């Protein structure tokens, strides 16, 4: 090893640039992380964080710049990066559902003798990796049968099993509950104490302040700032991310004047849902809080008929006329809108244009004698795209080319056009940047102001508190408590969600 200073740096990425088509995704970014350092990379969606990380992990090749690990240049390619000691925990889970936990942890690196897998060694290494991160799970269990949180930890175990010098995590907490997040952060601090260099991407500013020693802020692919975290305040970080003074309109509720009951769900039973009854009024936003796995998504899917319910009755009342909802088709036909948790798979046709996506649920009003009316569609789609603040507002672009936040706006635009009587939103701002989040909140409130009954599922407590007029908190498939706007605090929601004994904030 040489004695130059670069040899003391675990990973040094210098002058990285990457162009996708016409757009510069990463523009001359340099990053140095020392062993034992947790370095956070923050920025809005589309700022280039993931691209930068993927370049560092060898998944995509940069147009210019170099990556060195302890002073040794790393060749392009995943294999070379892995061999150099760089491990990436992906944003989208990259596990193989039908392989076991142990096999997933050592995917691509099975220990073999004459080509035959040595399952004893395989399990031993996997068990050690899991022990190192303090997670206990059956090594022979298939990943398809694990909870989302557990899969996330298996993913991390996979990275740790390779005993990397550099660990890169791309938004690992996006799908975790507060308790799980807390656990993960402590685990990362422990790994860093052991000498690992950690690059940590997150949207959640408090996490960044909790664990990192340095932070790099990216905006539009450019490196705005790299500084010790101690020199910054959360507000400064956010201001630098968005590049404009952003007033987080937290705790600025609307003045809701709920009307008649639009949705009444009685004694709903479904897998992971136990006899839940709830009502949503016109113009009211009802929030569903709770930990991941409490049955919230299952409940809303059972209510609108997207999944089967084993018992219970759902009635939708509008203009004094009631209908019983028995299937998703009948729900949509009767004025129900649904923005699912998995927007990439359930909410949007990514290879279709924005305009086509918006047109789909609005076919009837956009056709003349069953034939589509292109001018009308264009006007309609453009109006909605402008309304939701799609950036850039090009309705003929493929939806898949937009960032997560903008994709979510397209999903909202789709339903806005129908003026639904009852709207269900499941984690509407997960993985969405701060700016888009504020706009989505504004749209949801506007929808309620126009008389729509809204039901929101969110694991993001500030969001839940900001949007909801009433919060029902679920635990183990039941509503364990309901809070009005006046009583609801992060503390009171968490207490109900976690149960008295484990009420930790």
């Amino acid at each position, binding site marked *: 090893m040489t004695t130059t200073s670069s040899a003391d740096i675990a990973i040094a990425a210098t002058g990285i640039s990457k162009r996708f088509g016409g757009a510069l995704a990463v523009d001359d970014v340099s990053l140095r992380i020392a062993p034992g350092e947790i370095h956070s990379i923050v920025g809005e969606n589309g700022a280039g964080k993931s691209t930068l990380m993927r370049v560092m992990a060898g998944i995509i090749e940069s147009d210019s710049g170099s990556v060195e690990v302890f002073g040794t240049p790393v060749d392009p390619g995943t294999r070379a990066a892995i061999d150099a000691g760089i491990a990436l925990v992906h944003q989208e889970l990259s596990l193989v*559902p039908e392989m076991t936990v142990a096999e997933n942890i050592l995917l*691509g690196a*099975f220990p073999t003798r004459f080509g035959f897998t040595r399952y004893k060694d395989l399990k031993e290494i996997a068990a050690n990796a899991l022990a190192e991160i303090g997670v206990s799970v059956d090594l022979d269990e298939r990943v398809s049968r*694990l909870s989302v949180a557990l899969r996330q930890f298996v993913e991390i175990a996979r990275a740790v099993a390779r005993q990397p010098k550099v660990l890169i995590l791309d938004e690992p907490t996006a799908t975790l509950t507060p308790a799980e997040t807390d656990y993960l952060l402590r685990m990362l601090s422990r790994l860093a104490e052991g000498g690992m260099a950690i690059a940590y991407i997150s949207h959640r500013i408090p996490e960044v302040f909790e664990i990192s020693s340095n932070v790099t802020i990216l905006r539009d692919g450019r490196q705005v700032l790299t500084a010790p975290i101690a020199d910054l305040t959360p507000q400064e970080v956010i201001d630098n991310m968005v590049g404009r003074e952003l007033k987080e309109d937290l705790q600025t509720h609307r003045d809701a004047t709920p009307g008649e009951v639009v949705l009444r769900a009685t004694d709903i039973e479904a897998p992971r849902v136990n006899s839940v009854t709830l009502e949503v009024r016109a113009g009211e936003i009802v929030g569903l809080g709770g930990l991941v796995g409490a049955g919230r998504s299952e409940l809303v899917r059972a209510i609108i008929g997207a999944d089967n319910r084993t018992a219970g009755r759902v009635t939708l009342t509008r203009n004094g006329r009631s209908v019983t909802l028995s299937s998703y088709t009948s729900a949509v036909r009767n004025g129900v809108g649904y923005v699912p948790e998995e927007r990439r798979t359930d909410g949007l046709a990514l290879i279709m244009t924005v305009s086509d996506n918006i047109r789909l649920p609005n076919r009837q009003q956009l056709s003349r004698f069953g034939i589509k009316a292109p001018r009308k569609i264009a006007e309609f789609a453009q109006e909605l795209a402008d309304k939701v603040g799609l950036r850039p507002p090009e309705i003929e672009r493929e939806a898949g080319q937009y960032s997560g936040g903008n994709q979510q706006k397209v999903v909202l635009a789709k339903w806005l056009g129908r003026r639904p009587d009852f709207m269900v939103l499941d984690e509407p701002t997960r993985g969405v940047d701060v700016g888009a989040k504020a706009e989505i909140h504004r749209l949801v409130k506007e929808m309620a102001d126009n008389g729509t009954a809204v039901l929101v599922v969110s694991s993001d407590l500030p969001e839940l508190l900001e949007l909801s007029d009433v919060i029902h908190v679920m635990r183990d498939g039941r509503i364990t408590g309901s809070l009005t706007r006046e009583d609801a605090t992060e503390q009171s929601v968490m207490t109900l969600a976690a149960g008295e004994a484990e009420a930790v904030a």
Partner: protein
Amino acid sequence: MSTTISLGADESTGTWGRIRRTASRRTEGRGIVLLTFIIIMVALLEPLALTAYDVTLGRIALIGIVALGLTAVILMGELDLSVASTLAVAGVIMASIPDLALGIVAALVAGLVVGVINAFFVAVIGINSFIATLGTLFALRGLAFVLSNEAPVSLANKDAGIAFGQPLIGPLTPRILIFILVFIAIQLFVSRVRTGREFFAVGGNRQAARDAGIPVNKRIFTGFMISGFVAALAGVINTLERTTADPTAGSTVLLASFAAAIIGGNYLKGGRGSIIGTLIGAASLGILQVALTISGVQVPIQQIYIGVILLLAVTTDPTSLRAVRGSLRTFRQSRMKTPDG
């Protein structure tokens, strides 16, 4: 600081819990149920199909061998429609070469070459495997006719063929023995050999496989080469047993081998299934066909039975069953309830 965290894993313990969990991990369940059902029915109605087990085993080997190779490709989420044509071409090539050993080697090499061509279109050019192998299906069938001048080619060494049809060990003919060997080899390959086990990763989550550094394209080449080689091997066996190579050979093989793989619980989108499942599927079909033939059921009627069983096998998949139960319930509910108000 706490050292463990509850993440909602299935923590059921005890013998029964362990058995249940192990069972839920397997994919052969419905295949086993179907096979048991068929064996019981055949034992009651046409026991001859079981007592004449050498005939039945021969039938299973005929259906199964191509299906075993095909499963390697299906596990990766790809299809190989060219297997039956490969079988025919390999047979014709073999019979056209006077020297028996040379002919066999040439036929098997042809199978590997077909695999390479298929994999080239799928992995390198990036064509959907259904389309790519549909192309080779037609091209190879045509080639078989051209090479044979549109007529069956007789094997030069007829004695070798006749000897090949005789039992070798006990009642087991070489065909059955080869089938068993191929089964063991491929089963070991996909369950114990790293390369084969990685087929599940390629089929289950291709991006994850790539990101983990698995050479996905190489695996696709290996898979198609296995499928092509095994199909050619089946062609060699057929030619030996019949002492002629028919360019139209294998017309029923393609669909029967897909049926065997599907009945055995192999998921056509890949990543889920097993070689044992395919064996069970082939056994179900083989026993059924022999029993029906002995009972004098006409071939068209037999095909109706196979079709029904295929559909039954797929709808009785645990996940499908749950969906069917749910849909029926919702349907009933929607009939019973009338809109109020």
